């Protein structure tokens, strides 16, 4: 296996609370290989978006990446980098797409000039050249009439087209890594598949690695090579797509998969995981999932589970999995 493009180790992110700082993300570790698509899955509030922002070093103040965390991009630790180097990385080597295409474009300037800005921030080009590249990019992300759309304002485009513009913007500098934070959540179901296809095709043709944040296993199934499931600020299970969708080991992953509506279970009650994600700072002791876990036993509230490898590529952080292992 080649050296990973993105390596995250012991990532902890904290926010100030009434009594000291509270970690919202903690001991998160995963890697993304060049050209690979990794999905970060979890319920709202589990810390997946903030993890994505941490890769860009854009954790909103007063949040902070705790010392001891390591984020290595292309072999280089980016946490101690000066701000100017970091700015070159953002948009240049790492692109990012956001959840809300509706509000992610500046309403008072044309979409073309905004994509152009993304290029001019990182490359010295004459205006004509930059414009040509924008039109090329528009064509590549499947925007009809790219020449005319250059001068369109965001309000004149549909949600799907806006998300295409955002992708064009993020991919304009051919980044090595594309971070997509819930790229299809705000879109219609029909557009969703198109956008996912586009991301997958672009990534495949340009060799870009993708880190996709989602709560939707449909998205995972459509694009991901590997999956990391997050719960309450921690990764609870990782593995390839086939492993996680086919043989999930962690009770949380199993619960998530069971709660997807299935055609054969029509008319029956949809299964759910009882309870809600605990708030940061009120994490339960031991395994953080134990109050909601259907198979929790005596060890769970007392002891923090360690990593259990169930295959060369699949790991779970669960006492039950550990004890079941031969």
């Amino acid at each position, binding site marked *: 296996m080649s050296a990973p493009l993105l390596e995250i180790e012991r990532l902890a992110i904290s926010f100030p609370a009434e009594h000291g700082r509270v970690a919202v993300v903690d001991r998160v570790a995963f890697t993304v290989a060049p050209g690979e698509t990794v999905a970060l899955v979890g319920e709202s509030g589990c810390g997946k978006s903030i993890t994505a922002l941490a890769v860009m070093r854009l954790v909103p103040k007063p949040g902070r990446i705790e010392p001891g965390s390591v984020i290595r991009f292309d072999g280089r630790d980016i946490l101690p980098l000066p701000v100017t180097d970091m700015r070159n990385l953002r948009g240049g080597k790492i692109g990012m797409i956001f959840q809300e295409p509706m509000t992610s474009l*500046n309403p*008072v300037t044309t979409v073309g000039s905004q994509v152009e800005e993304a290029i001019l921030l990182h490359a010295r080009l004459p205006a004509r050249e930059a414009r040509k590249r924008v039109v090329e990019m528009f064509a590549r992300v499947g925007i009809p009439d790219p020449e005319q759309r250059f001068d369109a304002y965001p309000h004149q485009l549909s949600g799907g087209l806006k998300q295409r513009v*955002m992708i064009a913007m993020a991919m304009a500098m051919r980044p090595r890594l594309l971070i997509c934070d819930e790229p299809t959540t705000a879109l219609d179901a029909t557009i969703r598949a198109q956008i996912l296809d586009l991301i997958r095709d672009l990534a495949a043709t340009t060799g870009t690695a993708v880190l996709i944040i989602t709560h939707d296993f449909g998205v995972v199934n459509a694009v991901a090579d590997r999956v990391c499931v997050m719960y309450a600020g921690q990764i609870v299970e990782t593995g390839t797509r086939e492993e996680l969708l086919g043989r999930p080991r962690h009770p949380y992953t199993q619960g998530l998969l069971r709660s997807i509506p299935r055609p054969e279970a029509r008319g029956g009650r949809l299964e759910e995981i009882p309870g809600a994600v605990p708030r940061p700072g009120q994490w339960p002791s031991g395994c953080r999932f134990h109050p909601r876990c259907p198979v929790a036993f005596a060890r769970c509230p007392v002891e923090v589970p360690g990593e259990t490898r169930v295959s060369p590529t699949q790991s779970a952080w669960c006492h039950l999995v550990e004890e079941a292992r031969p």
Partner: protein
Amino acid sequence: MHWVSNIVVVLLVAGAVWLARRVARSRFWRESAVELWRRRRAAIVVVGLFVLVALLDSISWIGGAGAGDNVTASRPRTIIDRVFQPETFKEESYSAPLAGTAFYGSRPLAFPGRHLLGTDILGRDVVYRALKGVRVALLIGVFTSLVVIPIALLFGVTAGYFGRRIDDGVFFLMTVLASVPDLLLLIALVMVLGRGTVQVCIALGVTGWVRFCRIARGETLKLRESDYVAAARALGASDARIIFRHILPNLAHLVIITFALLFTAMVLTEAVLSYLGVGIEGSWGQMIDQARNELSRTPIIWWNITAAAILLFTLVLAVNTIADAMRDIADPRTRREGQ
């Protein structure tokens, strides 16, 4: 110094042409301008007339026919001056509008029936004086806005964008200024700076920026958290770039509205200052101040104060209605998405 004013006129006209072309090029601004014209045609025409008078009153040169004595002959005179010939077109004292004889006593007038709004105590034509006030009023409005808007934007945007210490500092400054009665501070500043037009405008600006600063700060606070600013950061844009590309353009509509509202507020404040005796030479406020004793005479001398008040009222009303329409047009809640 008259050539400075001539150059400014040329620059203003050139600037207006440039602005019109910019507006015509961008779809958003063009549509807004057309919409504004559709809604407030009368007010725009009125303001246009005021601007025209002010421009005519700003173009001046020395010499030319019709100069009175030697003193005036060596002075630059504006187009308005040349039309009215105030050196000769005057009476000895009061004359009622369109009267044939003097107001006190019945001596015949030099120009019977030609003073549309009569003359003042020194026999000066009131129409002429009122029209001379147009330029002063517009100068006050524009100059003060030019002082206020940069200060307020600088403080408001940096405070809103960077927050923390800068925000605390700016907020402290705003609170201190807001706690001092405006009029006292104004009078004190005018006394210190002097009584010229520029000085009074600076004084008005220094006291008037707080409100707009607060608006700019609040709006920046909101915009700073917007998704497109986050997206720009994720593209590697610097703070300065985000402010100039994404924050300031989104404040543009506020700047325009504030300009219109400030304009009228400042013209009115100057009238109050004149009333207190620290206003600008030749302003409507001064006319009103000088005319205030005339109201207690019998028979009443009403034309001085009426002329100044009507012009002041018309200008303020016209600009305010335009500002009102501008706000409706620029407000995303009343006009948005698919037009």
